[in-house]
């Protein structure tokens, strides 16, 4: 449920590091808590993400939630496919449901994030 090659934030985003870039999405726990996702509002390529700040919003039928950036950097890719198929976030949160790719400006921020076992324990406490 929580892939071990990812890092996790307390706001339930995940990060997949590849060299100096990081792909960001939300965890399986987060998508399950939200229910069916019907709208994802993402920033544009070239915008800056700041760790701890909102980079977008995600809406289910019942609720609206902010998306928080786990790391800082320039946004180099945005998953525009979520415009037409927001439900992908539910169906494949760690794959096709990714949201943005950032070029890491401060890789040391990764050390603040949880590994999968720490995140699993964190979720168990929150649930």
């Amino acid at each position, binding site marked *: 449920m929580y892939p071990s090659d990812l890092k996790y934030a307390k706001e339930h985003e995940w990060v997949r590091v590849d060299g100096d870039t990081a792909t960001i999405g939300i965890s399986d726990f987060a998508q399950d808590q939200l*229910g*069916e996702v*019907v*709208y994802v509002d993402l920033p544009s390529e070239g915008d800056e993400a700041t760790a701890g700040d909102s980079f977008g*919003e995600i*809406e*289910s*039928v*019942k609720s*609206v939630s902010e998306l928080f950036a786990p790391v800082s950097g320039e946004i180099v890719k945005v998953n525009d496919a979520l415009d037409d198929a927001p439900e992908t976030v539910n169906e494949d949160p760690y794959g096709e449901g990714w949201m943005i790719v950032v070029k890491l400006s401060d890789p040391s921020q990764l050390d603040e994030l949880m590994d999968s076992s720490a995140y699993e324990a964190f979720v168990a406490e929150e649930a």
Partner: protein
Amino acid sequence: MSGEELKRTPLFEEHVALGARMVPFAGWEMPVYYGGIIEEHNAVRTSAGMFDVCHMAEFRVFGAAAADALQGLLTNDIRRISEIGDAQYTLLCDEDGHVIDDLIVYHTGEHEYMIIANASNRAVDWEWLDARLPESVERVDESDRTALIALQGPRALSVIEELTGDDFELPSRFQVTGADLDDVPVLLARTGYTGEDGVEIVSHSSHAVQIWRLLLSFPEVTPCGLGARDTLRLEMGYALYGNDMDRTVDPISAGLGWAVAMGKGDFVGRDPIADVKARGPERRLVGLTVPDGIPRHGYPVLHGDREVGTVASGGFAPSLGHGIATAYVPAALSVEGTRLEVAIRRKVVPAVVTKPPFVRDTSLSRG
């Protein structure tokens, strides 16, 4: 409501066993969905869905003077349900002509009426009615011992027919009749809140689980939570008390003038309502189509750079794939096709005044 113990319907354990996500609603712990709101919504539009609505209030009013007494307290004309088995949507208004609650009144027997009211208004309605009904009219709050399960969708009636047998004649739309489901005595009311055909099943609360399981045994029936109930009713533009009307608004402004019989004689709230009708309301509740976002309760409605109203009910319409809402706007901006905007947090998106229902092709409209 915080700090108070949430109430549970007789079906609570059934919901838990089905894996429902439970939420607080009007003082009750209710299922918001089992699998997902959209799939439950679609089940009702295409097959059949069942809803636990046991939280709703049921009052019985009876006696030779019952009809006349209700005629003076409710806005609709009770003479239109003079036959036993008739039912009617109506409003309870205060002396200012503001809406206390919306109700369905069922003519269940000789000088006997059953009123179904919103769960959140049970105490207020009861006190209001109890204080104003004459002594000769008996009244009982039967909410605690009454179960209500709604079965709605294009395949709802075939399920009921299978349970009642060939000889049974289903009630017509807005009619109620007694029946036996699996030897359980029930009232079958051909009413609902989804825009689909179907019934609402009234029984003693001790039989709720049996009926629930009986309906669930049909593969075409999906258990549905309050989430789908809300998206279904919003697509039809059905008013939700507390969102679309309350003690600050009259029925004419709320678009519920069709449930007010001005010509029937006096009733509580008549004169102020007649004034609004004569003058024309300053603000009207309209439907809004919002293609590029999801409007929600309380969001500002704009015209140019001016804030002109507020979203009353809003959300994602699963049958349409985009946002819809109701909102109070100045009468001059209430004309169908008027272009407005809704402020959805950080951005402003277009909204077009649309006459509900938003979804027109349903089993109810097909007849």
